[in-house]
């Protein structure tokens, strides 16, 4: 790859960035869906009566056990068989988001369980109900503790959004294939460019999460540096 190749790639950067914007939209959709469903699933797994807990366990087992690309196909082609014609974008958010919720549930479950049981007993002794004790005492600490593990999930699902082109979402990989289809010689440089864009994005994202972690830290809760 010589220098002149990069001057050929440069005009295509805006198109790739437009694709990347779709990846970011997918990310925001799927990670917020995963966050909400993940926290609820983790709460159920830890605190709900056994049968419900088992159901939540089965849910995470399914979404952690099926390959992502299969989930994408199941949601995109499968839902329309039942008369629910979801768009490719929405199917991708749903499939990747629910999958992420299963992983996030494990992160949150670990965090819930790491809060000493004595705190719960103390809260109950002070007259808080079980639910209020969870919401006001356990949850705020557990969510903070989850951030480190959660940044891992963030980096992972950010890159997973590139799988969405398999069901026809025109994101960055699809844009790259358009460019490639009319400039065969740019195949490698285009993918190097895509890789660089993702490197920057994961760096910025993890930086933000790291800042949040430091800002939100509860003094005395975890091992102090």
């Amino acid at each position, binding site marked *: 790859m010589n220098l002149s190749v990069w001057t050929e790639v440069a*005009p295509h950067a805006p*198109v790739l960035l437009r694709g990347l914007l779709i990846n970011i939209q997918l990310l925001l959709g799927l990670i917020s869906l995963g966050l909400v469903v993940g926290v609820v699933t983790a709460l159920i797994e830890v605190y709900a009566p056994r049968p419900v807990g088992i159901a939540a366990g089965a849910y995470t087992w399914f979404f952690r056990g099926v390959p992502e690309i299969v989930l994408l*196909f199941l949601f*995109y*082609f499968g839902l*329309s*068989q039942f008369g629910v*014609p979801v768009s490719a974008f929405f199917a991708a958010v749903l499939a990747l988001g629910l999958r992420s919720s299963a992983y996030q549930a494990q992160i949150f479950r670990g965090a819930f369980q790491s809060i000493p049981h004595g705190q719960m007993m103390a809260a109950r002794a002070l007259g808080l109900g079980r639910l209020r004790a969870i919401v006001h005492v356990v949850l705020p600490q557990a969510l903070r503790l989850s951030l480190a593990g959660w940044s891992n999930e963030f980096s992972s699902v950010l890159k997973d959004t590139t799988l969405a*082109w*398999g*069901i*026809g979402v*025109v994101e960055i990989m*699809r844009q790259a*294939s*358009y460019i*490639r*289809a*009319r*400039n*065969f*010689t740019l*195949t*490698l440089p285009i993918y190097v460019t895509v890789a660089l864009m993702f490197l920057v994005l994961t760096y910025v994202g993890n930086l933000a999460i790291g800042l949040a972690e430091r800002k939100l830290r509860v003094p005395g809760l975890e091992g102090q540096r």
Partner: protein
Amino acid sequence: MKVVGVAFLMAVLLAGCLAMGQPKYIVLSDIAWAPFEWVSEKGAYLGFDLDVMRAIAILEGFEIELRDTPFDSIIPAIIAGRGDIGASGFTITEERALVINFSEAYWDSNQAVVVRAGSGLDLDMVALPGRLVGAQRGTTGSFWIEDEWVPLGVTLVEYETYPEAILDLLAGRIDGIVQDVDPSKMAVLQYKGQIEIAGVVDTGEQFGFLVAKGDPKELLPRIHRGVAALKDLGVWDLLIEAYFGPSLGAIESAWEKCIDILLVDRDPLRYAQCLTAELRP
């Protein structure tokens, strides 16, 4: 005067209703396979298949929505009711015909075997035991290698896309690639002096448009009438002249200049004439 005015208004309303009442069908295409379908520098969908579909829709009075779909997903999508017509250079095969219906063939395409320039390989030498030959997954090229060359001892290497196969060919990881003649010619043009066509395999293969099994929306008769009309009008040959030969960049700028004649004026013949006129030296 008033009567005329009212009549005019009624006519306009009626025309509006007719246009509104036109059925809309979803056309699926893997829009990364020039010159049959690709995305221009400015993001427009163009190519032979797509313009043919647009022209047929105009002649037969329906609307289409082009939806870009990866090749392997088009047939599943049509089976699942996520699209109505597949227009993506589909080779007519018995296996595919089991699950969807094909239109009459609209294109003859044989397979070209591309090798590194100066490798000195001809067709017989590519088909020797121990050779590695690449093809795009799910295409006729890969089926053909599987059926004809693998029994001779050739190993088939499959790729998600054609450009990836070319990269591996250039890197020396495979000895040749089997792909349709027209995309192969384009690749040779783009990689001038690096790859060449060793020969053309006469597979007798033909392309067809495809619709759901049993053609529940009765689209095939309309497609057939449309293709016949395009041929009668001379549009068909003009589109072939425009799309097969000139460089992609030249086609894109001609297309941009002319496409409104097709989409706004809805005149396929004048559009095809404009396109070829722009492209003639």
